[in-house]
């Protein structure tokens, strides 16, 4: 049942904009399109970004997020506000769909004679943030999927340990151990890049 209550004169749109995600989902459950629209505006781009980090393909990421929002609209009952925050639950929906998509996706064969273009930044831009992020991303690619997910949830998505653990279906201690191992591995890999990456921040 939609729990938006009017305590002072406000437009219904304003009320929805001010409502929590959980309240909005309760409205969506009752067929409230405005509430759905607010959730889309609030979270659509963020979850596309999250899916894209898993898939590395914008079109597929949009497909995954659209699928997740269809689920939200048609099966809003699947979300139980007693068990998790909306963002935690929805992250899990998007993330699991993205992983499924990634498993199904097969790399396209390159045509014969095809040469990969060198898209690396020029030497004179070697110290810019793009390079740092590229190096960091490359290092993260060497982590296990679970370690990478833990780092992503914690540092890129900004989840608390508790929420991130919930998304990964781990207890908090197990998540923290995973994150510690991931950090240690990242540090070891980045030490090799010390002169051309970490020294930038010196």
């Amino acid at each position, binding site marked *: 049942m939609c729990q938006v209550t009017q305590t002072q004169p406000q437009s219904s749109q304003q009320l929805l904009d001010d409502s929590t995600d959980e309240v909005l989902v309760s409205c969506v459950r009752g067929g409230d399109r405005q509430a759905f629209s607010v959730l889309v505006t609030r979270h659509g781009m963020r979850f*596309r970004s999250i899916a*894209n980090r898993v898939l590395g393909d914008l079109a597929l990421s949009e497909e995954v997020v659209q699928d997740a*929002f269809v689920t939200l609209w048609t099966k809003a009952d699947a979300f139980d506000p007693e068990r998790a925050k909306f963002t935690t639950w929805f992250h899990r929906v998007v993330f699991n769909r993205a992983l499924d998509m990634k498993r199904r996706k097969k790399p396209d064969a390159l045509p014969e004679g095809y040469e990969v273009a060198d898209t690396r930044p020029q030497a004179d831009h070697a110290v810019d943030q793009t390079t740092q992020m590229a190096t960091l991303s490359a290092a993260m690619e060497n982590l296990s999927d679970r370690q990478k997910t833990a780092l992503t949830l*914690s540092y890129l998505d900004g989840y608390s340990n508790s929420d991130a653990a919930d998304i990964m279906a781990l207890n908090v201690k197990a998540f923290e151990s995973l994150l510690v191992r991931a*950090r240690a591995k990242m540090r070891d890999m980045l030490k090799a890049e010390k002169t051309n990456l970490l020294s930038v921040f010196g």
Partner: protein
Amino acid sequence: MSKQTDPMTEADYDACVVAHGTDIALWPATERSRAREFLQTSDGQDASKLDNLFATLGPDEGGNDMMMQADTTDFLTRLQAIPDQYPQQATAANASAGTQSLGKKVGAFIDGLLDPARLWSPTGLAAQGFAFVLLMGVGMFVGAQQGPEMFNDYDVSAGIFEANNSEYSIDG
């Protein structure tokens, strides 16, 4: 984690960062002083730089990545249109369809029972025989539960014989 008096190691530092965040001021006092010493070392500086590197990534709200800037409006418009393409009424219709299909199933079951081919088959005859025996058994059980006096009201012959008794009495 090593003892609180030992110098902090990289593993200790990682554990503290994971548990308390990167802001050392928010760490427990004992860990704070060890961390300050650790950060003076080469390993500590590397660890700190790694955190700075993570901080540059920051929580991504989906709008920072250059690649993600393309067609955002189109994407959001498609998401906003989901209620038009997937009406929730479909769920109610499905529920109604489910009820109808249940009715159809019951009807089909009854039709099946009355199917002559099934009705006069050995299995059908056996089932009918079993049902007859069961019905008789239940009837006998119910009858046995009721006393014979309950039937006197319906026993017409009992009254007739009473009358006959008085009519043909030697005394009468």
